[in-house]
């Protein structure tokens, strides 16, 4: 119904090393109206017993989303802007295929509602030219939403990477992860 004013110059950049585990993004995420006031961002300790490292994870909006491919109900779709939308509520059968198949561990299953939900990059905001809630509140800029020129100025020693290798599988995404300068990919397992 709405005429989306999606600014395709704007991109999402994540740098997990900058995450301080403050949970501000989690609170802000719950303000997103497309989530029905449920927080969809993941933030947790990586290995609490040995480290204080925390990580933050938004949906990476894959070019060829595994979640949509394994969905038996055709409930997940990717739009013309490359945004992979949360499950269509009338179709989702709550099977959890997407939850278990996503290589980034993003979708959440609301057990009682028998519904998968996930980050859709605050579509109510981004489709109106605004920034996603999480990126507007992140105090350490672990989550940044802006143009490529802006991030290059802010992080001259980093390179945005959107190619991830999980064993033999190469996954390309709309969302970038900030890597050491000159990197072209991130290999998850040795």
């Amino acid at each position, binding site marked *: 119904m709405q005429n989306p004013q999606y600014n395709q110059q704007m991109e999402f950049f994540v740098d997990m090393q900058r995450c301080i585990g403050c949970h501000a993004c989690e609170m802000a995420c719950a303000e997103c109206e*497309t989530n029905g006031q449920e927080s969809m961002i*993941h933030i947790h300790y990586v290995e609490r017993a040995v480290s204080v490292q925390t990580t933050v994870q938004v949906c990476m909006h894959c070019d060829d989303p595994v979640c949509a491919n394994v969905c*038996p109900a055709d409930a997940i779709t990717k739009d013309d802007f490359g945004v992979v939308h949360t499950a269509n509520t009338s179709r989702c059968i709550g099977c959890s295929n997407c939850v278990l198949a996503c290589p980034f561990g993003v979708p959440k299953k609301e057990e*009682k509602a028998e519904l998968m939900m996930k980050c859709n990059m605050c579509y109510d905001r981004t489709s109106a030219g605004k920034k996603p809630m999480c990126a507007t509140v992140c105090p350490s800029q672990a989550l940044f939403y802006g143009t490529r020129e802006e991030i290059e100025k802010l992080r001259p020693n980093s390179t945005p990477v959107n190619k991830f290798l999980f064993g033999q599988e190469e996954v390309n995404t709309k969302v970038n992860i900030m890597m050491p300068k000159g990197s072209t990919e991130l290999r998850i397992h040795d």
Partner: protein
Amino acid sequence: MYRLIQTLNRTAFIKATIAAFAVIVLVVLGSRNLQNFDAALIAYLMGAIFAVFGVAYRYSVWLQRPPTRLYWRRSMQFLFSRDFPFYFVRSIRLFFQNILFQRFIYHRSRTRWIGHFLLATGCLIAFAVTIPLTLGWIHFEFKPGNNMLYYAKVFGFEMGSFELGSFVAFMAFHALVWCSVLVTIGAVMMVKRRLTDGGLIATQTFEGDWLPLILLIAISITGLGISYDYTFLQGKTYQFMAVIHAVTVILFLVWIPFGKFFHIFQRLAQLGANLYRYEGRKRGMAVCPHTKEEFATQLHIQDLKEVSKELGFDFTLKDGSSHLDLSPEGKRAALAKAHFEARKNAGAFFG
């Protein structure tokens, strides 16, 4: 036209044609060689046959997708196993819980559940009344020699009777009126959500979300118009009311296979997913190598590895294990650790 023929799914076309012919055969049988068929409903019958063809075609195409096929096969395998009585009873319970009462929607939002329940109940009762009437399976006759006693015949067999002017007669003859009221209230509640919820406003589409509601309201209001006409206007506007109602209903029937209404048929898969989960738990849970906690059934993880491979995604690792062996939290941690290592190897954690 050439493209349509080229992209035609042959298996689905054959199944849909069989389904449509089966309906025609059932019309002939159920109406006792058309003697009980109401010719005034011929346009509705055509719409219904098209809907059956379209739904069967789309359902068949849908079942050919690897993940859907897997769930379908597994559901049938578990249902028709030696535990049939248990799974059958469980399926019936789930049918009431999830299909007739849509309890899962209550956990999404109470108001939404009320709206959907009213709308769905109205539709289901209306289907139960109109489909047998349209197909000639049910009709009403006077008891011979008694023009006050009306009796219902199903497939030509007497199934019950009631007196004209009785409470039962009033309820039966106005069944569709009650359905229209339920559907209208439910649909208006849904319209209100779509007008006021910011998230829905951002993501909704006309054909996907608004058209179904408009059609349901149009059917209900024009249906009520027919009752209004014969109750208060002595049938003076009957032609107009009947034609406009038929147009809305036929549009609805034709739209069923293409739009949102197809979810009525897809929803049954939720029962299969439930049986799958239950059987999987019985067979054993998968433990995440990172969190050391159970997170899914082994059956599900194993099936998912095969389905994703079939779809062209191979997450097998060098040591023979799979990235899919990790729980969602384990996967996020693996990504974070890999990122940490990359930064560490570069000599600076920030940059």
